[in-house]
């Protein structure tokens, strides 16, 4: 067994998600991602079951591990109680730890996700926060969201919310002591280090691609990874 397979086995989700796959393909048949992308979870599980380090590195550098939407429909249908979605999660984590994620267009998007939902957790205590859901990057949200976004103090007040204020209720301000506890949890569990790893490999990749990168969302690299669709992802 290669070093990387051993590393994958250290991930509890890998242990829980893959016992002995018989390659029946039900996971691919039920998978919404397989319908949209050139994606085959059966093949990924097969590769992981049999792979040496070289093949695993190739997999973790590829686009394919980033196509799953983690709906976990595969878990319900697998006759062996495997969860290909968990295998994907373990592969994605290792891909980021080893720096392989920046080799693919879809993998590079991890910096965007880290700087949005990831950083929101520590900044606000929420994964999603209204002022960050900007209509210009979310045109699909439509005119009602634009109205809510522009009038958010009034709208959330009308809805029984408590936007940015102390106390109970929807969108209340999370107090400083609580945010410090969250930061401390991220520190102790290694998530702050994981964030630094994502930032560091991304910075290296930006330089290799000749794109400007800084700590804002407006730099060339972040804008590029959020919008680029230059590879062939569909069949």
């Amino acid at each position, binding site marked *: 067994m290669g070093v990387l397979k051993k590393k994958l086995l250290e991930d509890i989700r890998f242990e829980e998600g893959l016992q002995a796959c018989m390659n029946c393909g039900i996971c691919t048949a039920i998978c919404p991602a397989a319908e949209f992308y050139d994606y085959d979870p059966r093949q990924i599980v097969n590769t992981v079951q049999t792979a040496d380090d070289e093949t695993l590195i190739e997999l973790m550098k590829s686009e394919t591990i*980033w196509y799953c939407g983690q709906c976990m429909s595969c878990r319900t249908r697998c006759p062996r109680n495997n969860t290909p979605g968990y295998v994907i999660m373990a592969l994605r984590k290792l891909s980021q730890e080893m720096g392989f994620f920046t080799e693919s267009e879809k993998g590079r998007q991890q910096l965007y*996700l880290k700087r949005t939902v990831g950083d929101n957790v520590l900044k606000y205590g929420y994964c999603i926060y*209204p002022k960050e859901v900007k209509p210009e990057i979310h045109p699909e949200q439509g*005119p009602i969201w634009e109205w809510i976004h522009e009038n958010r103090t009034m709208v959330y007040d009308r*809805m*029984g919310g408590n936007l940015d204020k102390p*106390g109970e209720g929807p969108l209340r301000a999370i107090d400083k002591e609580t945010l410090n506890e969250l930061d401390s949890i991220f520190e102790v569990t290694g998530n702050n280090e994981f964030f630094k790893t*994502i930032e560091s490999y991304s910075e290296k990749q930006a330089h290799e691609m000749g794109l400007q990168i800084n700590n804002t969302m407006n730099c060339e690299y972040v804008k590029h990874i959020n919008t680029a669709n230059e590879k062939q992802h569909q069949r």
Partner: protein
Amino acid sequence: MNDIEKNVWRKYQKNIADDNYFFVRSCIRQNFFPASEQAFLKIMRNVLGKNVIEDPKHTTCAGIGYHSDVVTFDTLQTIMGRHFSLMTEAGIKNVAISCVTSFGLYSEVLETWKHFPKELEKTRDYLYKATGRTFEIPENIAHCSDIIYKFRNEIAQKATRKLVNAETGEPLSIVDHIGCHYSKIFPEYGEGGAEFPQVLTGMVSAWGGNSVDYPERRHCCGFGFRQYLVQANRGYSVSNTYKKLVSMEPYKPDFIVSNCPGCTMFMDKWQYTISEMEHKTFGDGNQGVPVLTYEEMAGLILGYNPWDLGLQMHQVSVEPLLKKMGIPYDESLKFADKNGHKSSVPFQPSYIL
């Protein structure tokens, strides 16, 4: 039903606590359907007389970050341990969870601790080191839709109207969508399991509506976490919602009801996007099909003001449904503030008026 049948069905039924809940909110619902969470609390406290505690110190569970692969499982477990610590401090043993993604993850964490006790030990260590906190494991966890389902008959008794067409007296045709993470990962945690989810159908039937089946009922709405959050990937998200909407179209639903925050939002907002991109609408004329949360559905039969329920935050207009149900509303107050003062009004799209 004979004893054998009862035994077969027993595994599809779950134990839901009767009273005394520690309430944890949803990130997406607070942003997009905050009045639904408030309606849940109002129904629980004022209609059913239940004790529901909210601690402002609870936070996101970080589930969207976890399923976007930027928050680790160790971190997720420790944040949940912190929530259990707040619950323990409040002297409560049951958790009422507003979000389906969170609910799936609470189930995952509790199952992990059962099967891998070292993970529980590790989480206790992490939490203590980070915050000095300790915690008890809850006796019961339930999604908020489970709880409304449990008390559906009591709610029906207090209702002022039914889910029927006020003019014809016919039951409304209602399609449901259950969030994938409600029971696809841990079927035993969902009412009806993954195969026969009863949680929304049970409410619809108890409140006089007609629950209509459709081919893609169990298909994912298409959120896909990174598949929506990153702009380049959103084709995945809208394509899956489109598949569902096309599948339910022949059944001419009066509305869609969902128990998942993201699914409710996407099926509402993507109807707007599809109408602008493809000039395609799924309701009568140029209208969309309203998408309601289960609390909004409950609130309408309990006689709550539609604008107090937050129905003006939906992109698909709900007025045709309100008219069909014979529910009075003041159009001039739709976009007003809480004191009835008028504000600006949203831009009118070409379709989905």
